[in-house]
């Protein structure tokens, strides 16, 4: 569009609010007034600082910086614009407004990248979800830093163009140069060096870990220091099957937003394992921060394992923040200017000592804790959170003979094969990606025998268990039946499932 003030250039960009993409129209026009650039439309500091980067980069790239006023509107104006990824579309807008590149070349174009003072284009965090967003918003082409092109090219249905510097961008949009074909980053399944065979003894704990992996059930391991809780928890992660491609993209997108993913890294199909330190803050765990909330460890563990070691060293109010997301499989963080939703379908594994000194229940060491200290220590784990954990297991120290002896258990590969087979049975019955922990009451009862149901009713009544325990026990029983390749839940499946709930080592 031409007029008294020259061309009104229009470039598209994507603003992410959490994982949710929003189309941003970058309208750029020359205007009367003192030379300079005026940005409107809720830019944050990083976006406002783009003026200096863009001007210097344009000048150092041998292009013309206009000696007049440039007004840029980021629409919708009430949506916060965050990050340096807006540098590239802003620069393209300025160049188009000053007619250094044809406006027609911007049709269907979306751009994302940070510009250096030398004109180089650099990748920014969140390139992958930006690419997903660009595709979902109907953009045909995405211009990104060459280093991030492989990551963006993982998204099907979108033409990804990698560029190295501003000169290349101009040549490309003028039609002086052909776009390079972007090759999607390779996928990989990192081999785990952790083997369940390394765990000596612990037959009950091994069985529990297998059930947790097969059904995605949350797990609480309680035991004295050095008995193998953390070892078991890490090996549980190795039992999980690889992610499907769309699941891996979803996980990578969250990691990309958090800046934890190198743009040139291959796409990992391994489920994530997050092990935050027990001194973690609430914002670190569930996400937060000023402006648009960033994902926390919970979201970063999406479709993987969130391992909280030394659980009871974490303050209770922080742990309680997990209650809702563990139930719903997503976390919604509301701030004054934004409301962000991150998925959080995690397998929550918690490990803790039974008391402050750690030796309560240790047959070889004497506990030195006063009873009131033990009570206070255990009270850090609230009943409602404990209720959401399906499998409670007390891990005892292994005796010296077992430690010195040869490995006596199955390997990770053998157990993982059973886990995968059980998950396939569930997927055939309920649909892909649905785990036993996510099943509804109606679905559970449909595959439960009458005898199993009456066994459960009798046990719930005789052992004074809560109504919530009813469904959760059935879900674990469903997983056990799937592990045994049995279609209908039998009484012994229910009884075994009850065993993991009956004697909570923490609240028992």
């Amino acid at each position, binding site marked *: 569009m031409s007029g008294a003030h020259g061309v009104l250039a229009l470039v598209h960009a994507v603003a992410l609010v959490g994982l949710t993409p929003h189309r941003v129209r970058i309208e750029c026009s020359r205007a009367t007034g003192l030379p300079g650039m005026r940005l409107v439309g809720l830019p944050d500091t990083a976006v406002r600082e783009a003026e200096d980067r863009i001007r210097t980069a344009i000048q150092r790239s041998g292009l013309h910086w206009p000696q007049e006023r440039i007004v840029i509107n980021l629409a919708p104006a009430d949506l916060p614009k965050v990050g340096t990824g807006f540098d590239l579309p802003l620069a393209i807008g300025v160049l188009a407004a000053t007619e250094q590149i044809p406006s027609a070349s911007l049709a269907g174009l979306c751009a994302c990248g940070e510009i250096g003072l030398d004109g180089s284009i650099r990748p920014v965090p969140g390139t992958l979800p930006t690419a997903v967003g660009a595709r979902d918003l109907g953009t045909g082409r995405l211009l990104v830093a060459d280093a991030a092109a492989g990551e963006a090219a993982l998204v099907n249905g979108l033409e990804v163009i990698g560029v190295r510097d501003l000169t290349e961008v101009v040549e490309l949009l003028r039609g002086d140069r052909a776009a390079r074909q972007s090759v999607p980053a390779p996928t990989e399944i990192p081999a785990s060096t952790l083997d369940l065979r390394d765990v000596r003894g612990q*037959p009950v704990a091994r*069985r529990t870990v297998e059930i947790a992996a097969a059904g995605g059930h949350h797990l609480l391991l309680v035991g004295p220091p050095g008995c193998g809780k953390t070892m078991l928890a890490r090996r549980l992660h190795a039992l999980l099957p690889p992610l499907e491609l769309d699941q891996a993209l979803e996980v990578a997108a969250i990691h990309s937003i958090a800046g934890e993913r190198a743009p040139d890294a291959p796409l990992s199909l391994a489920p994530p394992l997050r092990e935050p330190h027990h001194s973690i803050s609430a914002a670190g765990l569930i996400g937060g921060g000023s402006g648009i909330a960033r994902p926390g460890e919970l979201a970063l563990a999406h479709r993987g394992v969130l391992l909280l070691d030394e659980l009871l060293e974490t303050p209770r109010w922080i742990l309680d923040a997990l209650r809702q997301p563990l139930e719903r499989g997503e976390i919604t963080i509301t701030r004054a200017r934004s409301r962000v939703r991150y998925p959080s379908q995690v397998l929550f594994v918690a490990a803790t000592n039974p008391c402050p000194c750690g030796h309560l229940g240790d047959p070889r060491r004497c506990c030195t804790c006063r009873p009131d200290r033990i009570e206070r220590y255990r009270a850090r784990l609230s009943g409602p959170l404990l209720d959401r954990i399906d499998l409670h297991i007390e891990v005892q120290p292994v005796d010296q003979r077992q430690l010195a002896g040869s490995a006596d258990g199955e390997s990770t590969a053998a157990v993982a094969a059973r886990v995968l087979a059980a998950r396939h049975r569930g997927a055939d019955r309920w649909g892909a990606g649905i785990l036993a922990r996510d099943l509804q009451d109606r679905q559970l009862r449909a595959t439960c025998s009458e005898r199993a149901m009456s066994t459960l009713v009798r046990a719930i009544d005789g*052992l004074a268990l809560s109504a919530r325990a009813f469904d959760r026990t059935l879900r674990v029983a469903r997983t056990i039946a799937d592990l045994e390749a049995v279609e209908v839940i039998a009484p012994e499946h229910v009884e075994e499932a009850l065993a993991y709930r009956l004697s909570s080592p923490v609240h028992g």
Partner: protein
Amino acid sequence: MSAALAGLRSVAAQVAADGTDPDELAAIVAFSAQPRSHPDALRRRDRDGHRSGPAATRVAALAGPPTATTGAVAQRLLGAWRDDGVRVTLIGDPAYPRCLAEGWPELDPPVWLAWRGQAPGHAPGVAIVGARRATSYGSGIAAWLAEAGDVRAPGSAAPHRLLAEGAAPCCSPAQLLEALGAPGGGPALLDVTASAADEVARSGATERAGAASAATTLPPAVHAALVRAWPRPVRLEDLASSAQVPVGGLLAALTRARVNGEVAEAADGIRLRRAPPDAG
């Protein structure tokens, strides 16, 4: 005498230690079956009153004869004790430790002592009472005793649950250490109060089991391991290692047995709720 009270006397006779009058035992247990009645209140009343005659007789007189209602409750309680192999003596009776009854009256000795296995005896010794409401001091004493004797207490997992509000001379250190679960087996002291047996009775497990206490829903190897360990608990991991059954099946069987009242789970393992028929 009604049939109910005759039955009560018969059960009391099976539980009473040598030298303890079953009628007195029945009267005191029946008194304690009333709501908010504790026989120690009778003893305190007796201490403030006349002092002639055996203490147990005086306390039993204060308790009064059992009624049909209290008699029925007492009979159930005494039956549970009998099934668990518990013996009971009353204060001042021959089996009641003299040093506890007479030597330290300020210790407020209990009206009855219940035990399983070897009787407490009269030699100077140490026992700790009030297991379920232990103070940190009591827990410390328990831990110290356990360490000094190089033994594992059946609650070393939770010594605070096991023992103690105060120390009372009741049995020899050897007996105490034995009671705490010294390796090599031997009799174990159930408790120096009646609360543990009370708990068994309240659970109704004994009633459900009836006389057929040998019947079990556990796999034979598991049941045998629990019988061998009786009255000590067996760690779940040890059962799983030695039971020769899949872990899942073992857990299911233990749950079934727990629902049926056959086994109980403690902090330090699993044990049979009742003495096996061939236990000493």
